[in-house]
């Protein structure tokens, strides 16, 4: 074709997308979004719960300020048996053994636990999903090495693997950074659990006709990856989130509990600086150790109920949110 001809240039995929957006009248997009959101009760519930958690976390940061991680400790509370139960002065009771107020401790833990969980899941999820989807789209050597690394690492029980990594690096990490290192190591351990299923689904998605069409229309690899493959291959990663919440709190709780209940047979492995550091898993372990008796259940139930409720609430919030997003995306997939 000559340079002076009047042939119509083939639009790029970005131009086609922009054309589709122009078809929607101003304001209609938000109404559609709202309608789909309100028709998704799981997403409403999940976002509501997580929103409440974030609001409490922000309030805790504002209210406690620099003393957020240093709750007041009282020796007489630590040694008081039975500990005072819930009251107006102490709505979650007193946590004997570690000598802190239950409500203050649980409240202070909101920003800390949200940070830990989102750092761990965020790093594992983002790395795993991106690598899995990229390997499927790119194929070849990239696919081989990502699959190989994920298969090798997924063979290690995450429970042991994260402890091996943490204790190996513990001596090289300044104490102040260990709190951040721990969730990042979780990310390093858990990413294969996102990469493997996402890659498997993405391998099917890339063969779908609409992806082929996009490629034929000249879409870049990044466009195919983020616009077409990722949204349709994300759902197995969403199903993985509750399992990883389980894994994270499994490690946070089990070592303090075994250490406390065994009287020192099992040494304490924790990234937290002290026993009354406000973190739900550690609180739950201490509260159960000092407050629960298999001979007279429920014992001093307030010592373990409220930390457990906070963990379960966060898990439910994440589960509902992920289910809701899955439903949202599957609606788009069906469409």
């Amino acid at each position, binding site marked *: 074709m000559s340079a002076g001809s009047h042939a119509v240039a083939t639009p790029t995929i970005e131009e086609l997308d922009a054309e589709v957006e122009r078809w929607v009248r101003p304001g209609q997009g938000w109404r559609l979004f709202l309608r789909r959101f309100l028709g998704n009760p799981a997403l409403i519930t999940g976002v509501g719960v997580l929103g409440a958690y974030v609001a409490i976390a922000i309030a805790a940061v504002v209210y406690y300020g620099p003393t957020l991680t240093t709750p007041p400790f009282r020796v*007489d509370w630590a*040694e*008081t*048996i*039975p500990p005072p139960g819930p009251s107006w002065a102490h709505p979650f009771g007193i946590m004997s053994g570690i000598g802190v107020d239950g409500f203050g401790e649980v409240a202070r833990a909101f920003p800390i636990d949200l940070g830990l969980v989102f750092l761990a899941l965020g790093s594992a999820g983002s790395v795993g999903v991106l690598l899995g989807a990229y390997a499927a789209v790119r194929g070849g050597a990239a696919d081989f090495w990502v699959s190989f690394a994920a*298969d*090798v*690492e*997924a*063979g*290690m*029980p*995450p*429970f*042991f*693997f994260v*402890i*091996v*990594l943490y*204790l*190996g*690096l513990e*001596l*090289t990490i300044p104490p102040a950074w260990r709190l951040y290192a721990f969730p990042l190591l979780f990310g390093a351990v858990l990413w294969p659990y996102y990469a493997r299923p996402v890659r498997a689904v993405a391998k099917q998605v890339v063969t779908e006709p609409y992806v082929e069409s996009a490629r034929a229309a000249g879409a870049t690899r990044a466009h195919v990856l983020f616009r077409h493959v990722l949204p349709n291959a994300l759902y197995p990663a969403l*199903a993985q989130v*509750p*399992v990883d*919440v*389980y894994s994270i*709190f*499994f490690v946070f*709780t*089990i*070592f303090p509990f*075994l*250490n406390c*209940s*065994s*009287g*020192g*047979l*099992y*040494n304490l*492995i924790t990234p937290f600086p002290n026993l009354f550091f406000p973190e739900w*898993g550690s609180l*739950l*372990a201490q509260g*159960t150790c000092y407050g*629960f*008796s*298999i*001979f*007279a*259940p429920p014992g001093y139930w307030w010592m373990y109920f409220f930390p*457990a409720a906070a*963990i*379960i609430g966060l*898990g*439910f919030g994440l*589960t509902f949110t992920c289910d809701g997003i899955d439903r949202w995306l599957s609606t788009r997939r069906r469409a």
Partner: protein
Amino acid sequence: MSGASRPDRRGPGGIVLVAVAMAALLVVVLPAGGSGGATPAQSIPLAGPAAALERVSLVYDSIGGWDTAAGAENRSGFSPIGGPLSASVGNTYCPAAGLPMRSGVVAAGALAFVADVFGDVFALNRTELDVGGGNHTVVWSALVGTNPTTPDVSTNSVLVGDSVGLVSAFDIETGGLRWSHSLNGSIVDGVAVVNGTVYVGTSTGVVAALSLAFGTVNWTTSLGPAVSGAVAVANGRVFASTVDGGLTALAAGTGAILWRTSIGGSLSAGPAVLGDRVALVDNATAVGVWNTGNGSLLWRWNGSAASPGDRAEAAPVLNPTTVFVHTHEANLYAFNLSTGAIRWNQSNTFFHTGYPALSTPAVTANVVYAYDATQQLKAISLTTGRVLWRATFGTVSYAPVAVDSGEVLIGDETGCVHVVGSGSSGFPWPVRGVVTDTNGTPLPHVSVFTNLGLNTTNASGGFFLGLPNGTYDLAFALSGYEEIHQILVVTGPVPDDQVVLPKIVVHPLSGRVVDSYSGLGVPGVQLYIYGVDLFLVAVTSGPGGAFEVGAPQGAVEISAQPSDQHDGVVVTVAMPAGPLSGVTVGVPPTGLPISPNDPYDVFILLPLAALATAGGGVAVLAARARRVTIGLPPAILSRFARYVLQRSLLLPAQLVTILTVLYIFGTYIPAAATQTPVCNFSALSCGYCAWSNPGCVAQAFGSGYGLFLWNLFSGNWGTTSYGHLVEPAWTFFVWYVPYSIELAGVALAISAVSAYVIGLTAGWNRDRPLDVGVRTASVIGLLVPSFLVVLAMFSVLYTPFLRFFGDTPFGVLPAPGWFEDRGSIPKWIGIAYNTTPTGLPILDAALNGAWRVVVITSAKTLLQALLIAAIYVPLFLRYARNAVAQAAEEPHVVAARARGIPESTIRWRHTGRRVIPIFLLAFAATLPLYIGTQSLVEAMTSDPGIGSLLLTQMTTFLRSGFGFHPAPGASKPGNFYQVTIFLLVAVVLIGTLASEILSRYLDPRSGRSENS
């Protein structure tokens, strides 16, 4: 206490007069020859106008009516008037329901005193207490500050200290406050009253002496750190320990420091004194005994080496021959007071309730009473360490045990006082006598035992006891003489007794001490030979383990003492009226004579594996050549076979990666972080290079990696310890793996069946109530922390299990106590509760015909398997449920519906078969989570499996060296935990591989028969 202050008591002069007068009046019936020489089991029924006599109360007091465990000023815990001989009588009274009692119960005559943590001090009527209490049990009560000390009632005042620093004195009969004095800090544990002076230690590190009459301060002495436990007073000296491990002796009159020493570790309890010995135990269970006169150390025992991780916060207790130490883990050690040799150890290694044993025991001449983590009061023979009886209360107690005149008293965490035994039923009568040999020569140092305690004869052979009404087995024992028993019925004043002890006729007793594992003779083992509850002689085994002693006819107990490499053991033989030879004393090893460098089977397996690989290669090449010859394409493998091959080739790469990670993070990085000499983890010499030299460090990395792999694959796993055992790591692995295999077999079967049925049913009924319920339960099961699930199930099942089986659900085999109650631990159970011949506990119990053990072990295994399933199945369903729903919509299922095949047939035959490969893949994906779950359950249920062993190893050794020894020149890596993790990961990888291959095989689309 003065006699005048207690109207119901008389002075000592009255005792003598009354006793002499009544002795002349009494009719004493003795068997023939009774005055010339008693024979065994004589009966001395007494009669006389007992009702006309008043009880001689001061005798009761002077013998030790209030020498309870926590109440005596020397803190020895020793009570010469013994406790009950059975648990047949026991009552509970709760004066302070809900408020824990942490201080000890003390008794003074007819009253017992106890205080709760809130500060209520109660005076209780003991007669009422003996029958369970009533409206008039509390005679008076008073209030002091929180966390009061054990009261002192050795005078006519009740003295109590508290956490606000007050020392208060109350009238013992009315409870009226006499005075109180405030000191800085808290009063620690107890007050001691001697010669009109009250001695206390405080949390500010001060020892103070107050006037008993007025509460004014006589003197104070500052020791620096906080006082760690109740001060003890004896021989004109005050002994105080401080939390930093210090032990100080002060002059009781002036407070001047006489000497100071230290046990070395931090302290949570105070000292105990008896005679010229003062004992102390630190938090790491180190035990020290010093001379009270000059503070010279007599012996010290390092508990942390014997039982790593165990702690001790209860004070030691002493009787004239033995020191007892009770630890967190409910290990009760008995040491020879003079030498420090362990006489025995009552171990509860496999029992963890979550409650530490903090209660200080009480001891009499021949029995020690301990309240431990099993929530039982145990009466343990001082001689043998065996449990004589148990009384189960089912409540937690951290208070000291108190023994007083036939009773044991203890307060608990629920505010109740438990009483075991029949009590004194009033005040005792004096019992006197003389012991001679057959020639009429008086015998000093003869032990005179009664149901209530011990006395010994003086230089003239005389003895003196105080016995309340009742029937007593009066025993007279002296080494080298026959033990004489008399049945003494006391209903009133008792006439003087005359006892003759004949010399024992002994016969030669010979045999060998052998290693129970190898059968080899063990020289140098010290043997204590006992007659019936009577020490005869000590001897040491010679070359080949041979020994020879003289022993009398009848039951003879040979107690082999623990040595460097062996545990102690007690063997009983029936000695005939003549020589006995060929007795074998098998001592279980604590350090087996197995070289940690033994190559084991790996050297056999490696050549076999190489041979198999080469043979396989030859076979493949031959098959390929044959196919080409007959005109077929050279590919000899089907699509499925190629998949299997490719997938299998991934395994070695995975294993090498894991090994590298374990080496880098387990050995190399920690070594680099601590600048450890390279000789500690590599084959290079110590001074070969510095960490600042990159080239040399790279060389050390390679050399260390090579050594790591060589050690791993040559079986050089080093030695490790678990509890008090120190063995080659391989031995531990062999002992504990079968437990895990047996549990995994049951747990996986239960999990697979339940997950299959639940998953298939829920997926088939997608979005119906059943499915929603399963999904919800699955999410809840995922989010509720696993250990709460374990605790919840145990809280429901613990009591029914205990009632039905007579044993707790902890562990796998029945607990040692269960076996001891039925004789002894059978020989097919080894020193680490490992079983023979197969190592699988249920199977071995069946092979040895122990059917009750089979039932209990199966029940415990089943319970643990159910716990694992309760945690693991929700995880599994998260992966597997959707697969069922997809399978239910596949074309062959739709076609089957169209043909009118019944729903149940479609569900279980068409869909059920289709989902099996998917379920196998889900299992492969969740196998790492399963391994973690089983490890948790093993650890929490005290199952001696590889999971709990690994957790112990990881938490113990990872932090303190992580595979290398930091001390220069120490042995090369002891990398057992790395080995264990590697083997577990290998199991996971092989399991995953097998699951994926099986899944592919079962999938009809896999093309496994493409070329057939």
